């Protein structure tokens, strides 16, 4: 039986990345390399106001003074920042009126991913802001949203149309010098999404963005800003897959979320970037800074992520619980396989009174991969009666992979209650035998067991997304583990 498990894991580990294709859309790129000049060109190409150029330049100068972080559990090959193209945009054609006008190649890409805009529109009731490389290609459902006063558009468009809103919030949650990659992003970010839900409005649809990295050698620097004003609610979905490429591709995104009094933002990600081949070659480097600010009383921000891709993932969606009675949540499934490395987790910073946070992290490791949970729960002196519950589970497939847990707890208030639970388990021979005895193939069995293991997190995702995530887990576990 143990032999069998080895074989299954071997099979699964050896299958190739399913979404390894890349589309050939004409792109407009600038020369490789990073300098103050590069920053100015990006800003100019995007016809940005002066203040935004200043913001970028300040960030760039800050970045020059910073050192690349050196994490104990990630083995990151040196990145040559001069060997990256910092701007790529699909060549501007005329404004698109309908899907018929969208580049057929692009539609084809979406079709391969099973996420055609048409289908999404009809079936899921999801407004899709499709981002290919760095510029938004298509925004749908804008009319419905407009009616409610919801702003959902590409970041660049928002800079032009709502400069005051952007200026008011940009960099308030993740300051330009927050960390090395945040500084880099602040200097050279290309595009992303902007979302504003006005007072008292509940978004009638889930807002969804599909990101893809599409041009060889293009660093991807997304910038997302989401604001829920007082009493507003939105559920926001981000999903991505990337074409198979030989060279490593850097991705350093920033997501900032602000929730005002009684506001709520639910942010869900399914991430499936090219993880590298069986030898660990290629694959995306994913260094993301995601942070939410629970600004007002009773505000709530929850992060749900399903991470199956990337060669290296470095990502800690966090919440700053500033308002009294505010709530922060983090639900995560991270799968690593072959030579993938993931260092992910969450930070919950309790500032306000009676604040509450929950962290549920499920790591799944296969192959020779390493999967680390790194979390921080900090209760500040004024955060009376605050609570945190953290649960970090690791599931190992095979005996060449590793799981590590680094929970940091800093409690500076004696009325706070912080609970932490951690488990490590393996899929047992007995479970596999049981499933197979009922007629399930070994791959199906592992897929089922792993999905069961991750259920608590998958349940947090919106319905259609959950199904997609389940499929993805099975694929990367068919193809990566089971």
């Amino acid at each position, binding site marked *: 039986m143990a032999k069998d498990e080895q074989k299954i894991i071997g099979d699964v580990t050896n299958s190739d990345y399913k979404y390894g294709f890349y589309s050939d859309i004409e792109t407009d790129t600038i020369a490789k390399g990073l300098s103050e000049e590069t920053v100015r060109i990006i800003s100019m190409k995007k016809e940005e106001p002066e203040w935004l150029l200043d913001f970028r330049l300040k960030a760039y100068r800050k970045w020059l003074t910073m050192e690349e972080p050196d994490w104990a559990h990630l083995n990151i090959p040196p990145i040559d920042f001069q060997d990256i193209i910092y701007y790529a945009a699909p060549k501007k054609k005329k404004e698109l009126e309908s899907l018929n006008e969208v580049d057929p190649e692009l539609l084809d890409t979406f079709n391969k991913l099973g996420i055609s805009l048409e289908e999404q529109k009809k079936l899921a009731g999801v407004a899709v802001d499709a981002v290919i490389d760095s510029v938004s290609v298509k925004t749908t459902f804008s009319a419905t949203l407009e009616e409610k006063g919801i702003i959902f558009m590409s970041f660049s468009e928002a800079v032009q149309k709502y400069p005051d809103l952007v200026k008011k919030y940009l960099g308030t949650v993740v300051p330009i010098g927050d960390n090395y990659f945040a500084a880099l992003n602040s200097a050279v970010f290309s595009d992303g999404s902007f979302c504003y839900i006005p007072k008292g409005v509940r978004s009638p649809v889930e807002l969804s963005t599909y990101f893809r990295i599409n041009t060889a050698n293009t660093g991807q620097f997304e910038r997302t800003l989401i604001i829920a004003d007082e009493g507003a609610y939105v559920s926001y979905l981000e999903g991505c897959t990337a074409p198979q490429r030989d060279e490593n591709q850097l991705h350093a995104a920033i997501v900032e979320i602000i929730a005002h009094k009684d506001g709520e933002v639910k942010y869900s990600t399914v991430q499936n970037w090219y993880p590298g081949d069986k030898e660990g070659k290629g694959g995306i480097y994913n260094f993301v800074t995601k942070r939410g600010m629970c600004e007002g009383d009773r505000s709530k921000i929850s992060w749900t992520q399903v991470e199956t891709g990337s060669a290296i993932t470095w990502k800690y969606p966090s919440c700053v619980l500033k308002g009294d009675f505010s709530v922060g949540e983090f639900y995560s499934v991270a799968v690593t396989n072959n030579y993938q490395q993931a260092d992910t987790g969450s930070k919950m910073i309790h500032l306000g009174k009676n604040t509450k946070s929950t962290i549920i992290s499920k790591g799944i490791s296969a192959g020779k991969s390493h999967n680390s949970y790194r979390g921080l729960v900090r209760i500040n002196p004024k955060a009376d009666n605050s609570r945190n519950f953290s649960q970090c589970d690791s599931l190992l497939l095979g005996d060449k992979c590793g799981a590590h847990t680094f929970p940091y707890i800093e409690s500076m208030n004696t009325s706070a209650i912080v609970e932490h639970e951690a488990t490590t388990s393996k899929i047992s021979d007995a479970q596999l035998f049981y499933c197979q*005895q009922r007629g399930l193939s070994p791959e199906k069995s592992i897929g089922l067991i792993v999905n069961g293991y991750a259920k608590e997190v998958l349940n947090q995702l919106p319905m259609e997304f959950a199904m997609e995530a389940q499929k993805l887990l099975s694929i990367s576990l068919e193809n990566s583990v089971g």
Partner: protein
Amino acid sequence: MLQIKDLHVSVQGKEILTGLNLEVNAGEVHAIMGPNGTGKSTLASVIAGNENYEVTKGEIIYNSKNLLELSIEDRAREGVFLGFQYPVEIPGVSMTNFMRTALDEIREYRGEKPLSAAQFLKYMKQKKALVEMQDKLNNRSVNEGFSGGEKKKNEIFQMAMLEPKLAILDETDSGLDIDALRIVANGVTKLKSPENATIVITHYQRLLDYIVPDFVHVMYEGRIVKTGDKSLALELEEKGYDWIKDELKA
């Protein structure tokens, strides 16, 4: 349907089955009894394909196929069902989802179309009634937090769902209260047909009051050492196993 000839099985270098012979035909019910540790569960596991056990000699022919060459799942798809003595828990996987996946796989193997969601739920409802299974158990994870008796009932429910040709029930009666025993036994009886066969492994003759066996076998030290009819079970209940051991020594 099933012919086992001179079966020798070892685990970790220790021989557990020592030349076992057994023949089961369609429509029959066989009971296997015997002292603890004589290899009853081992036999069941080997038929199902558990790879922890090494078959060193002998053969198992099932519907004129060499069973030992089939994978675990193909044996199941060919109609071999094992009701486990100790069913395992699979956290987070609902019984409904588990059975749906299993049935889909089996139907696909047989070249049948998968049932629609509605058909499946209807089918499941019928089968649940058969074993008087409570509704709530279906939404719970496979065996997770089930009581001992519920787990055993759940095995019979799964058997009802999968409609096997050869069902091996390993001590499905232990740990059942008297009502549950009746329900389980009735379930088995209702599922009985001239096309399928059942092997029940048990320590108690009381099960055999409900499931009337055509043959009762006594297993001892890795072999079947005595075969009789229902009266043999009664005799064992009364006298224990010593007289058989004595007979063997004589």
